[in-house]
């Protein structure tokens, strides 16, 4: 075969593809050549020379990681010359190495230790003092902070440049470089800028030695004392595979579990460092109930009796429709299913929802439409097959860090181009992206304009209404036309007053683009699809079927009951509005915090205050929990088992690393114990029992097909009937309200790239990575207002005002400002009102 070459390694024949290296060929034979700088994800640079091998007829030893295999090559890995060569390389690398293994955090898992043990010299021949880069002259301190969480000890560095290459080649960031040369080399950012890439933690995991260490792990524990448990990250929809390193009930660090199809061995800093929130000692420790106006610690028995008793009496007074359940999108499939079951079967209400961060939650019809798209996913690993990627309504770098790496990979392969439309600029730093910034809430008009442009119709009106130059949209239409495109639709499209129309338009646009174009809906939240599928919305029953007569009877048989509550039921917005008017008897919050996150703090607060009884089940005491009558401590993810469906459509099971700390309990257990007190006869001893019950329901609904998930997860095989899409002819552009003279700026808000709600803020490193709430503003706007970075400003809307520091961000659309939602103390939602689509604010310098 012409594309293959045959060579001999250690007297064994091997055939590899043309272009593969000698090292690849050796690996194919199972021959391990020691390496430092080689990494299958990076371009070879042959910096370390550890992989030297002897090639017959070659004058010198060659670095096998970089030299391509050639037909007829005869390679010796273990010849005397090769062994001597590698020993010399190690002696050279060690000549300036401090050998401070006893105090080095990498000790015990250091590749330099391993290679020296296996291949290295037994002693040193030099007596000269070793080169030392000292950070702090006074205390003779060698470590120095590269950024908020990463520390560097330059003496230990062996110059493999994995760290800089990971950041440049994979993450596409430009804040870590290697300056100078030889043993004067030093790593830092351009102009000594702090190392703040949101993928910075990967350098620590991949550094072969202890040169780079994370703040949260430094000088804490020896790695060999830790146990490893495979798990799945819960902090966004990507579902990265992780390993929890723990000792007893203490979680020390989170590393990648290297799923080639999901994360490719990389994690974002939110998952890696933010996930350590589970280890915070500010967690809720005991169940609490309100006595004489105060939340006081109590036992589980008493707390559950108290909650169940109150729910019973509320049900008698208000009927079951007066009780509402608000979960959250991070609950596992098993927990969601149980929650749906207790709401519908045990309490007898359809008032259940899992979204509480948006006021425009999708209707049942839209939910079913979403389900239709959600189950047909393009796996990350296939992103490169698309000519174009069109992202609308999200900043994927914030919502899906690891998915964005796949986009970047597709871009850097040169085969794909990326287009992104959102209300702020999308910038992948070293990877080019074309970005359009429309008005906040301008999704509908933008989609309409793009659709009309593709149809060849006039777009002036809709482009104007979306705040984008019509020539720009025409250009995109030209570029996208006829090409195989992956459309990535963000939450802004469906959590939108015109959500249903948006999805219809998107579908129409997709149909107008080239053959093979597909819509992917990468949702924020680790188990959004699972929540839709297992019945955490009023209109959808477990199994993903619509809540109608026929489907209810299927579920009834399974649950051995005569009837389930008739269709109807309220979503979060409706529940909160009703409760604020005093029309709800009880609210159950399961990991949700509407007071902190619902975009109308006044309504949410009133709702919780005015409900006759309210209970929160959560890991940290939230603003909502503080107002509740009972608070139950929920164990965070390392202490729970269950399964999640990632936004890629991948079903992944995870096991708990250790039992819940303090008196907290796993979610499913809390729901179950409560349900039993309310008259539920069933019992489960583990999530897998729940899962088998769910499986049989899903089978009966005829829509979900799966096998027990193996390592690495697996795709659900599902198919939902397509919904009717509306006729688009009647769609008219709809101009948005403009800011007033008094309130001239539009307020936007959302998550910070490093955080997930306020959970991650409890992680030890987070106050360094992402300190305090800030108001982000475009520098041009700021210049006009004579505002300097760091000035304290007052932001006010008709609803209220906040004081915070200002920060510049050129990505913010002029005329808008942005507040990250992750800081409880900021109370961003006190500026918002559920009555208006857009919030206008004014900014004053204090």
């Amino acid at each position, binding site marked *: 075969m012409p594309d293959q070459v045959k060579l001999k390694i250690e007297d064994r024949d091997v055939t590899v593809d043309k272009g593969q290296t000698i090292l690849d060929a050796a690996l194919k034979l199972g021959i391990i050549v020691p390496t430092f700088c080689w990494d299958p994800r990076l371009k070879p640079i042959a910096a370390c020379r550890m992989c030297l091998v002897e090639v017959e007829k070659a004058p010198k030893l060659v670095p096998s990681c970089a030299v391509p295999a050639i037909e007829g090559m005869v390679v010796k890995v273990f010849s005397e010359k090769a062994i001597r060569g590698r020993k010399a390389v190690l002696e050279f690398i060690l000549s300036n190495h401090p050998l401070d293994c006893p105090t080095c955090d990498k000790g015990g898992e250091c590749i330099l230790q391993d290679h020296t043990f296996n291949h290295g010299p037994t002693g040193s021949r030099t007596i000269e003092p070793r080169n030392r880069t000292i950070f702090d002259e006074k205390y003779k301190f060698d470590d120095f902070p590269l950024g908020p969480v990463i520390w560097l000890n330059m003496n230990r560095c062996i110059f493999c440049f994995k760290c800089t290459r990971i950041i*440049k080649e994979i993450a596409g960031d*430009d*804040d870590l*470089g*290697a*300056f*100078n*040369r030889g043993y004067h080399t030093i790593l830092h*950012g*351009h*102009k000594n800028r702090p190392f703040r890439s949101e993928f910075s933690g990967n350098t620590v995991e991949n550094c072969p030695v202890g040169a780079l260490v994370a703040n949260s792990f430094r000088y804490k524990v020896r790695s060999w004392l830790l146990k490893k448990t495979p798990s799945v990250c819960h902090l966004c929809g990507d579902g990265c595979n992780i390993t929890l390193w723990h000792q007893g009930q203490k979680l020390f660090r989170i590393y990648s579990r290297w799923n080639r199809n999901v994360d490719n061995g990389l994690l974002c800093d939110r998952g890696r460092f933010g996930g350590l929130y589970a280890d915070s000692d500010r967690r809720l420790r005991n169940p609490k109930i309100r006595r004489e106006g105060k939340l006081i610690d109590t036992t589980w028995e008493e707390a559950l009796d108290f909650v169940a008793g109150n729910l019973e009496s509320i049900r008698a007074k208000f009927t079951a429709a007066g009780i509402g359940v608000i979960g959250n999108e991070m609950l596992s499939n098993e927990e969601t299913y149980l929650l749906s079951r207790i709401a519908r079967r045990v309490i007898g209400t359809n008032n259940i929802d899992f979204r509480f961060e948006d006021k425009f939650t999708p209707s049942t019809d839209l939910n079913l439409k979403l389900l239709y798209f959600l189950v047909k996913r393009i796996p990350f690993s296939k992103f490169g097959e698309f000519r174009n990627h069109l992202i609308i309504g999200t900043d994927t770098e914030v919502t899906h860090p690891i998915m964005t790496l796949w986009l970047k990979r597709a871009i850097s392969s040169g085969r794909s181009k990326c287009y992104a439309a959102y209300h702020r600029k999308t910038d992948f730093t*070293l990877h080019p992206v074309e970005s359009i910034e429309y008005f906040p809430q301008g999704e509908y008009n933008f989609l309409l304009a793009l659709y009309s442009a593709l149809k060849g119709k006039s777009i002036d009106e809709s482009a104007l209404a979306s705040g984008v130059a019509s020539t720009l949209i025409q250009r995109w239409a030209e570029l996208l036309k006829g090409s195989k495109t992956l459309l990535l639709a963000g939450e802004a499209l469906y959590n939108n007053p015109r959500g249903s129309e948006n999805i219809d338009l998107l579908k129409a646009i997709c149909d107008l683009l080239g053959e093979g174009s597909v819509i992917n809906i990468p949702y924020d939240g680790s188990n959004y699809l699972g929540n839709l599928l297992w019945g955490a919305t009023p209109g959808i029953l477990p199994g993903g079927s619509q809540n109608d007569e026929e489907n209810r009877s299927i579920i009834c048989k399974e649950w051995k009951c005569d009837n389930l509550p008739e269709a109807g039921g309220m979503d979060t917005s409706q529940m909160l509005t009703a409760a604020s008017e005093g029309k709800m008897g009880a609210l159950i919050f399961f990991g949700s915090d509407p007071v902190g996150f619902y975009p109308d703090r006044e309504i949410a607060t009133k709702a919780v205050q005015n409900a006759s009884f309210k209970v929160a089940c959560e890991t940290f005491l939230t603003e909502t929990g503080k107002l509740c009558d009972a608070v139950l401590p929920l164990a965070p993810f390392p202490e729970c088992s269950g399964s999640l469906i990632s936004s890629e459509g991948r079903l992944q099971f995870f096991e708990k690393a250790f039992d819940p700390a303090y008196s907290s309990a796993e979610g499913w257990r809390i729901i179950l114990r409560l349900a039993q007190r309310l008259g539920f006869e069933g019992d489960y001893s583990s999530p897998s029992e729940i899962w088998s019950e769910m499986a049989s329901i899903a089978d009966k609904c005829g829509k979900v097909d799966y096998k027990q998930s193996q390592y690495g997860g697996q795709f659900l095989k599902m198919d939902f009937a397509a919904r009717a899409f509306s006729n688009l002819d009647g769609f008219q552009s709809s101009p948005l309200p403009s800011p007033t003279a008094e309130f001239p700026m539009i307020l936007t808000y959302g998550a910070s790239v490093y955080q997930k709600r306020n959970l991650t803020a409890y992680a030890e490193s987070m106050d360094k990575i992402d300190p305090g709430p800030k108001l982000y503003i475009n520098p041009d706007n700021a210049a006009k207002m004579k505002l300097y970075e760091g000035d304290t400003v007052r932001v006010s809307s008709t609803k209220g005002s906040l004081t915070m520091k200002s920060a510049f961000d050129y990505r913010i659309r002029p005329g808008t400002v942005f507040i990250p939602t992750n800081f409880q103390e900021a109370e961003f939602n006190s500026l918002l009102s559920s009555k208006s689509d857009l919030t206008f604010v004014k900014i004053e310098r204090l």
Partner: protein
Amino acid sequence: MYLSEQTRQKIMELRDRYPARLAAVLPVLHLVYDEFGYLGTDQLDEAADALGISRLDMNETASFYTLFPKHKVGKYLIQVCDNISCALRGADNLVSYLESKLGIKVGGTTPDGLFTLWTVECLGSCGTAPMMQVNDKYYERLTREKVDKLLEAWRNSK
């Protein structure tokens, strides 16, 4: 704006000369050096933007080449070889003589901005040791008298 229009133009021409833009970094460093006599971060940043590569890459590469000054140096950059052949022929005497004549230490620049003194690794002129390179020219088989004369000439040619 630091770079002259001319340099900028030349950088633009280099953009597409090689299969990869990074390959043009070295010629660009020379262009910047020719214009300023040193490679400052600000100039390099502009050159990186003009070439269309990341500023980080440009600065990293520049830092690798120690023979490019990174800060403003004197009109005459004196680089004395202090490697073995020159050392055997009295390079260290030469260096200390230059230091005392110029009133600066190795690495320093005279207050009048005329001279900067460096020591460097072998310049490949061992047969004519001791030697030094001043700007682009070699001065070989140096003696104190020769050095006196040269300095005198440069001082006068201000």
